[in-house]
């Protein structure tokens, strides 16, 4: 008998259909990965098992845990099951813990709420599970508060809460999506180890196919609330039946071919740049400390070159980006574009700004919701001494919208009328409209679904051919950087530890940190779809 059996589960929320006839099953000790893009219903499937669905949800079908139906269980019985028989780990470790309670209290609560054991034993068990997840109490006392821990450490606390009572089934909803690759690798290892050790079933929800291929015994691919394909991992990877599955894998490992760069001449020169931030004082009268976000960074970017910048969160890549854009002044060092400094006498240099534009990560936060597209994408005209007007302006708008694959008619619409991918196209149009010498892509495809991401990468390659783009592509995603750049720099703790030709760095990393990064990144299985 399976541990968990979902049969023909259909779900609607306030009448809107979310899940259609979803079926899957998990055996003890088995890892089943549910994957798909946003809107596929994978997270709702997980919440349905926990019976923690939003208000107004109506479910049909059956969810059986060891043969017992969960759908029609009274709430009191579900409470007894949650945390004891089924544990759950969530995506966002930064907000998943109560900020005003210590980690010890929060882990112990799982044990005490189920009256599983008296307090002294519960305390011992708490120490034991925290040690098991890699937070030994001698280094991480139970009296710590969540804000005193890093994202990866918090996720370990969440996992400790979920496994404290050795549940038979663990549900993990995108458990590593918010984490850096090296942390992700550690958390995935931890989960795999726990499954083996406790013979738990693990229902893993993730959009990352490389993670899926690496972890899962069984794969379930979902799209728009339906299971399109499922099966044992090795078998499914070799014999993909559904075109959507093939498309997903193709898009995840999407490759573009960049046109050859023009003759090199130095465009951006960054010399010995350092940026410090003040830290809170330590102790009652201590002097404030400093955090060196960027530490003596030097590099040059040639005209026509596509340069990548990779590193984990907190490595200083955002600070460096802001410094190059002239949004923040640096303490020492020099940033020049075409020989001119980005900061002239503590003021941003307009002559330089004119030659630079940026595309940000968040397709939703990048636009003023109260302006129309025409006004949004012409904002950089503000930098020009004689901005185009009248029909010339209209022509430029139309040209740009066409260039990024939209229609000139879209100029009159508001931003909320567009999807995430379309918004990122509009962001690119805004960056291109004054024909800058240099564009910075700051995690520009990180928030997109794989299929949309593949389209945007294609668009970039296309634009490289038509507009001779020079760009700095900042990302934490090694796979994307590998295909979209000629040269790459690896940043760690404020320093550039390695730089070189992209292919060379990836194939033969020299610095130990680069090696760790590449080692930790989950690899897509070679399934031959790229050749086909």
């Amino acid at each position, binding site marked *: 008998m399976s541990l968990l059996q979902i049969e023909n589960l259909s779900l609607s929320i306030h009448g809107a259909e979310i899940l259609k006839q979803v079926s899957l099953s998990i055996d003890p000790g088995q890892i089943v990965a549910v994957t798909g893009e946003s809107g596929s219903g994978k997270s709702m499937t997980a919440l349905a098992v926990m019976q923690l669905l939003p208000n107004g949800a109506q479910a049909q079908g059956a969810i059986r845990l060891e043969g017992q139906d969960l759908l029609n269980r009274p709430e009191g019985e579900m409470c007894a099951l949650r945390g004891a028989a089924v544990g*759950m780990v969530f995506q966002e470790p930064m907000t998943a813990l109560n*900020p005003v309670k210590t980690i010890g209290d929060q882990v112990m609560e*799982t044990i005490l*709420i189920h009256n599983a054991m008296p307090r002294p034993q519960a305390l011992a068990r708490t120490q034991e599970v925290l040690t098991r997840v890699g937070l030994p109490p001698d280094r991480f006392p139970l009296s710590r508060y969540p804000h005193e821990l890093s994202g990866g450490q918090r996720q370990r606390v*969440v996992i400790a809460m979920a496994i404290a009572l050795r549940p038979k089934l663990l549900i993990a909803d995108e458990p590593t999506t918010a984490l850096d690759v090296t942390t992700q690798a550690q958390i995935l290892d931890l989960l795999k180890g726990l499954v083996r050790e406790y013979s738990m079933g693990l229902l893993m929800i993730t959009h990352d196919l490389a993670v899926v291929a690496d972890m899962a015994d069984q794969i379930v691919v979902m799209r728009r609330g339906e299971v399109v394909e499922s099966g044992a991992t090795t078998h499914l990877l070799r014999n993909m039946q559904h075109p959507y599955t093939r498309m997903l894998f193709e898009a995840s490992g999407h490759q573009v071919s960049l046109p050859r760069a023009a003759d090199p001449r130095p465009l951006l020169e960054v010399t010995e740049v350092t940026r410090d931030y003040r830290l809170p*004082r330590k102790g*009652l009268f201590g002097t404030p400390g400093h955090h060196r976000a960027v530490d003596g960074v030097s590099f040059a970017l040639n005209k026509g070159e596509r340069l990548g910048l990779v590193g984990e969160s907190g490595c200083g890549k955002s600070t460096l980006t802001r410094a190059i854009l002239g949004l923040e002044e640096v303490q020492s060092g020099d940033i020049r574009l075409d020989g001119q400094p980005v900061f002239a006498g503590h003021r941003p240099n307009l002559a330089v700004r004119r030659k630079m534009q940026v595309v940000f990560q968040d397709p939703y936060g990048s636009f003023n919701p109260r302006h129309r597209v025409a006004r949004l994408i012409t904002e950089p005209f503000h930098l020009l001494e004689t901005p185009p007007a009248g029909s010339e302006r209209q022509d430029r708008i139309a040209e740009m919208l066409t260039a990024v694959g939209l229609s000139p008619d879209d100029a009159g619409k508001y931003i909320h009328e567009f999807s995430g991918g379309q918004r990122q196209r509009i962001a690119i149009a805004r960056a291109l409209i004054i024909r800058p010498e240099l564009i910075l892509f700051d995690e520009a495809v990180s928030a997109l679904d794989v299929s949309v991401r593949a389209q945007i990468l294609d668009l970039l390659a296309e634009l490289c051919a038509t507009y001779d783009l020079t760009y700095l592509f900042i990302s934490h995603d090694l796979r994307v950087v590998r295909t979209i750049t000629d040269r790459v720099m690896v940043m760690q703790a404020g320093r550039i530890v390695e730089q070189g030709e992209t292919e060379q760095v990836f194939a033969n990393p020299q610095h130990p940190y680069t090696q760790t990064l590449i080692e930790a990144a989950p690899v897509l299985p070679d399934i031959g779809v790229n050749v086909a």
Partner: protein
Amino acid sequence: MPNVASMLRYALKRLISLLISLAVASVVIFAVIEVAPGDPASFMLGVNAQEDTLAALRAELGLDVSKAQRYFNWVGGMLMGDFGTSYTYRTPVSQMIADRLWVSLPLALYALTLSTLIAFPAGIYAAARRGKPGDLTVMGATQLGIAVPNFWFAMMLVLIFAINLRWFNAGGFAGWDQGLWIGLHSLTLPSIALALPQAAILARVMRSSLLDILGEDFMRTARAKGLSRRQALWRHGVRNALIPVLTIIGLQFSFLLAGSIIIEQVFYLPGLGRLVFQAISARDLIVVESVVMLLVFAVITVNFLVDLAYAAVDPRLRSRT
């Protein structure tokens, strides 16, 4: 003990800003009163006063020195508990204020207690039953409560409970020497009048703050651990929801203090309110000045205490600067 040190640092920082606020507030109050036309000495002695008698009175009142000197004398005196001498009654202002404070302060605290005792359960109840009839009833009542002016409500209370039902006296204050119970009894109607409109505001804040917290990720985590809705609400919701509620309680204290000045008029209570209005009509500016300073001192101090309470509730604040 990093927690104790950071807590102390936080408290010290707040204390310094409290002292700066008090200093600036005293300058502002002194400056405004200085603008007042006329000479208190000639006002007190009338138009026919002799020049030398006036000079003597000015010296007695400390009016014969420079403005800066007068300011420092005033502040210095207050620090020593000497608020100067009333122009009209010729008695120490500190004594007059102390007498009246024994009415106003218990009134404000009584009202604050009532308002919190009513608002917390009402707000939590409404949040737990969001959208259900219980919630709608509480919200409707608070909507009305916010709209009612407290002094009008006080008049209605007098009409019903004092004039018609005769459960309470319509006004006046027996004094604490008659016993705690009698004193509290005569402050009950005024406190209810003050507390109910404030309770309506507080209950709404409590409810919306809780509802915000109910949408947080960690509430879902708590449910996934096996806590029931109610357990999650009490163990994880209420303490987090208190953070914005504390701000409002701090603000409410100043409203209650100001409100008590008005309510004292309805019930003929011998509090700070009556003192200040008598002082205004008698142009006894030193009394006005001192009472205003005292009220502002109370508000600033309460907000300081609220800041400290924040740090007790929210560990993140202690480690921030």
